[in-house]
């Protein structure tokens, strides 16, 4: 077994320094529910692990500029227990709740869910439809990156050497807004998405959709944000005609693989079916959120 060095720096600047200076493969460690498992299964052999949980404020969840800031090390359980966040972004909570068991969520973070870059990651589609920005810190300074631009292909991200996500920013929520996420899995719990869909809507007083974002998970190498799906909903009351258009646009956007969890055909059709259900749920929530 190669040498492994473990560091738990007390500041972001030190974390960046360690990552920049790393000679072999380096990994950021937050919840460890992917990193430790991949080490255990000999899928990765890092030379350096940088645990970010000792950096002050990395686990914070705070209200900011009418929205929220979620620290990179906040666990899934901490997110699910945050009442104001649950009320504002129930679709994100739908996704986070599906990440593994209670004991896994006690450690797992949405940051790891994103950076592990699995196309089936449950928290990613609703973060994408929320318009979340990842605050990236690295040797060349800081930048805000839309979450959909972080994963580039399965297991790969756009983060450069020495860069890490410090937190996420969720925007302020206009009233009459609602979001939802659902996935299809053969089992109810403890499974990995075969298809996942997130929808985020804003309505006017009459219930007409004025803004929409729709994201698809597990049907392409990365989570897809699909403007054609949004266009099917905008200007409608999310009626049957709009839902039919949405389903067609969602199915058309899929570029799925065949694997043990589902065939291409199943995923394409399932995405359309699920998109309808999720849009209806998001619509109900937006109506209730006046």
């Amino acid at each position, binding site marked *: 077994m190669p*040498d492994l060095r473990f560091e738990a720096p007390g500041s972001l600047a030190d974390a960046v320094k360690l990552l920049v200076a790393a000679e072999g493969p380096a990994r950021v*460690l937050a919840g460890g529910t992917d990193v430790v498992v991949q080490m255990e299964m000999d899928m990765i052999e890092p030379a350096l692990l940088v645990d970010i949980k000792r950096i002050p404020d990395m686990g914070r969840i705070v209200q900011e500029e009418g929205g929220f800031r979620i620290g990179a090390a906040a666990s899934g359980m901490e997110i699910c227990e945050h009442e104001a966040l649950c009320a504002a972004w129930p679709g994100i909570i739908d996704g986070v709740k599906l990440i593994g068991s*209670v004991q896994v969520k006690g450690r797992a973070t949405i940051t790891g869910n994103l950076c592990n870059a699995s196309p089936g990651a449950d928290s990613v589609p609703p973060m994408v439809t929320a318009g979340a920005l990842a605050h990236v810190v690295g040797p060349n300074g800081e930048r805000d990156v839309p979450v959909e631009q972080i994963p580039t292909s399965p297991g790969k991200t756009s983060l450069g050497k020495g860069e890490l996500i410090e937190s996420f920013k969720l925007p302020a929520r206009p009233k009459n807004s609602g979001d939802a996420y659902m996935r299809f899995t053969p089992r109810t*719990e*403890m499974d990995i998405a075969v298809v996942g869909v997130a929808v985020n809507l804003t309505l006017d007083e009459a219930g007409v959709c004025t803004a929409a974002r729709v994201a698809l998970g597990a049907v392409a190498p990365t989570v897809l944000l699909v403007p054609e799906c949004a266009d099917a909903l905008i200007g409608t009351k999310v009626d049957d005609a709009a839902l039919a258009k949405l389903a067609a646009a969602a199915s058309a956007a899929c570029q799925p693989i065949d694997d043990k969890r589902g065939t291409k055909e199943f995923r394409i059709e399932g995405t359309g079916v699920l998109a309808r259900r999720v849009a209806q749920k998001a619509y109900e929530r937006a109506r209730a959120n006046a």
Partner: protein
Amino acid sequence: MSKKYHVSLTVNGDEYECLAEPQMTLLDVLRDELKLTGTKEGCATGDCGACSVMVDGRLTCSCLVLAPEAEGRSVETIEGMAKDGELHPLQQKFLEMNGLQCGICTPGILVAAKALLDRKPDADEMEIRYWLAGNLCRCTGYDKIIRAVMAAGEEMKGA
């Protein structure tokens, strides 16, 4: 060989220290270094829940925590559940109501169930089933486990 890390942690209120390689997990520390073998290893990949412990008050798979991460943390395991020789209501109900057969899943299930009942003794069957979804049992078919947890909740509510 990787450098060894000095780890000091509290387990069930007692302080422990050990030297651990960074690939070692908290589960390895508990079982192999501290000889607290009540916590079990089923899968070592976060799937079965047999290794469930509390870390700083949070239900956690100890197989997913690296030893150096445990530095300064407060851990509670199955060994701390009975107090002064008195079984916890959960343990008592598991015995009375056949909540176990081979018993390998039992410590993890007891720790996980206690984490739920401590904050919600009146959790209903659905909540208990979802809460324990990460604890696999090869033997019982789960039903007796769920009944025993519900009965323990009843008793804890009354207490």
